[in-house]
């Protein structure tokens, strides 16, 4: 935890610097007439102080436990894959349409995380896609993209 806390504190310190620079570009006003940059400037200063406090606490810590980020290759593979599929859905949904994108999302995740038989994957993915479209697109009239195939 010590190392991760130090890294996070440094990142936060950088973020507070960025916030401060961006806030200074806005009109600050004064104490009598605070403007748009007033509150964010205070926030950036408080964030800097808290980041320094975290850095100070972390540097005094003794490394007692293994890093919480030490998950094992398989766990990281699953997490990376899940994030990748979510992003791919975002990039493809307008183009492929909701039904096809959601079918692919469910099918790929089912296949990749805990492999099961293809016919079962297709049944689950297809029924999920169709039922969710029925509930949201048809019943609740949620506007869902239809894509180039019109589905």
């Amino acid at each position, binding site marked *: *935890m010590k190392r*991760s*806390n130090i890294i996070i504190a440094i990142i*936060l310190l950088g973020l507070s610097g960025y*916030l401060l620079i961006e806030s200074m570009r*806005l*009109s600050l006003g*004064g*104490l*009598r*007439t*605070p*403007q*748009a*940059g*007033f*509150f*964010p400037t205070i*926030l*950036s200063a*408080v*964030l800097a102080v*808290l*980041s320094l*406090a*975290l850095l100070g*606490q*972390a540097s005094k810590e003794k490394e007692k436990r293994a890093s*919480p*980020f030490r*998950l*094992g290759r398989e*766990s*990281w593979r*699953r*997490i990376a894959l*899940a*994030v990748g*599929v*979510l*992003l791919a*859905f*975002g990039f493809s*949904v*307008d183009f492929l349409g*909701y039904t096809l994108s959601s079918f692919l*999302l469910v099918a790929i*995740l*089912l296949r990749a*995380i*805990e492999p099961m038989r293809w016919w079962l994957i297709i049944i*689950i993915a297809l029924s*999920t896609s169709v039922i*969710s479209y029925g509930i*949201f697109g048809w019943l609740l*009239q*949620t*506007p*869902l*993209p239809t894509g180039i195939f019109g589905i």
Partner: protein
Amino acid sequence: MDVLGYVGLGFSVALEPLNLLFCFVGVLIGTLVGVLPGLGPVAAVAFLLSVTFKMAPATGIIMLAGIYYGAMYGGSTTSILVNIPGETASVVTCLDGYQMARQGRAGPALGISAFGSFIAGTLGVVGLMFLAPLLGQAALKFGPPEFFALTFTGLTLVSYLSQAPLTKSLIMAVLGLSVGSVGMDPVSGEERFTQGLLTLRDGFGLVPVAMGMFGIAEVLENLGETARRNVYETAIKGLLPNLRDWKDSFWPIVRGSVMGFFLGILPGPGPVIASFASYATEKRLSRHPEKFGTGAIEGVAGPESANNSATAGSFIPLLSLGIPTSGIMALFMGALMIHGIQPGPLFIRNYPELFWGVVASMYVGNAMLLILNLPLIGLWVRVLKIPYAILFPLIFLFCLIGVYSLNGNVAEIFIMVGFGIAGFLLRKAGFEGAPFLLAMVLGPIMESSLRQSLIISHGSFSIFFTRPISGALILLSCASLITPLILPRKNGNKD
């Protein structure tokens, strides 16, 4: 109109067929997310927020409230049968509930938990009915300094009471305030931190951020774990507690209900604190404290009652002051504001049908939950057996639909995924999401009340200390910030 008249008005709203239907849908979804470890009520409410756009405000809020208190009921099922709490508020139920299940008394444990929840939930609603209008009246005298002090106190107390170390919780609160300040300045219209992106002109949406921090982050965390859960394999029979069980549970239910209600009003994770406080109280008051942890029914009845009445209590600051005190209340505030309704001192006066309708629906919902939880326990056990590998793609899909359907904007999907990744990494590093979400919603109120106060006082910060209510609140905040520096941390340093 007197209280009885308003109660009648509330029931006339709550018993409308459509409101009854969505109350049922809400408590059903609530029980489901409570039963399923890895999907909490915050993510469920965030996800269904977009669905409420097309509903009447009362119908939407009735459904969302049903999810919240329904999750408290459902959470106990997993605690008792699997020794895994479906909700943090049910953590303490594992101690005696699971032991009761191992001794073949899963039925009475589930039964007393459902009955206790019902009684406490109902008592909590009665408290809400009487206290919220009184507080609303008092809050009419509040000015900008009081509102600033309230939001400031809310944030510091939530940070102080969170499970994470104080520094980390305060950092999350400041990050939430910073994210909340993105977009157009509410006074001058000047753009802040948008980098010219059109999507950010109105700021980060509450739904993508909440779904990312609570829905996606939670699933990613579960994907990183390898432990499997085993449902306690036994026939569950005799759900009705016997006379002895009732005798043992009566006072824990009463004490848990009262304690839970008042702890729920305070900023912070009310239901969680209430359940732990009730367990500690019952153990201290018991003539057989050594039985706690080995299957004492009082250890189930008290905490389960406390966490349910706390849900009713937590609505009070939002509905009467316009100040949410937890992440989920922040979402309720968002739900009201989407419909153009500003919660606050005038809320109850301006929207009596909505306030009393939602309150009455909670009575109805509690009765529905009793019916759902007892005879359908077998169904919830079967739900528990669904492999996570099948469940999580569905959770992802629901999050994606929930976010996309808001504005039909793909950029919000990326915002959700971005906050999901950040939320996952921060959770791993011991940071908590609740202060962040609360700060994000409170940010605009806090900023505008701070600026207005300074304008009123011609730039003097003394305005916050010279007015009695704001002075007392600021003092309370300072105490919560200074106490950990003087006294050892309550839960030790978690790092």
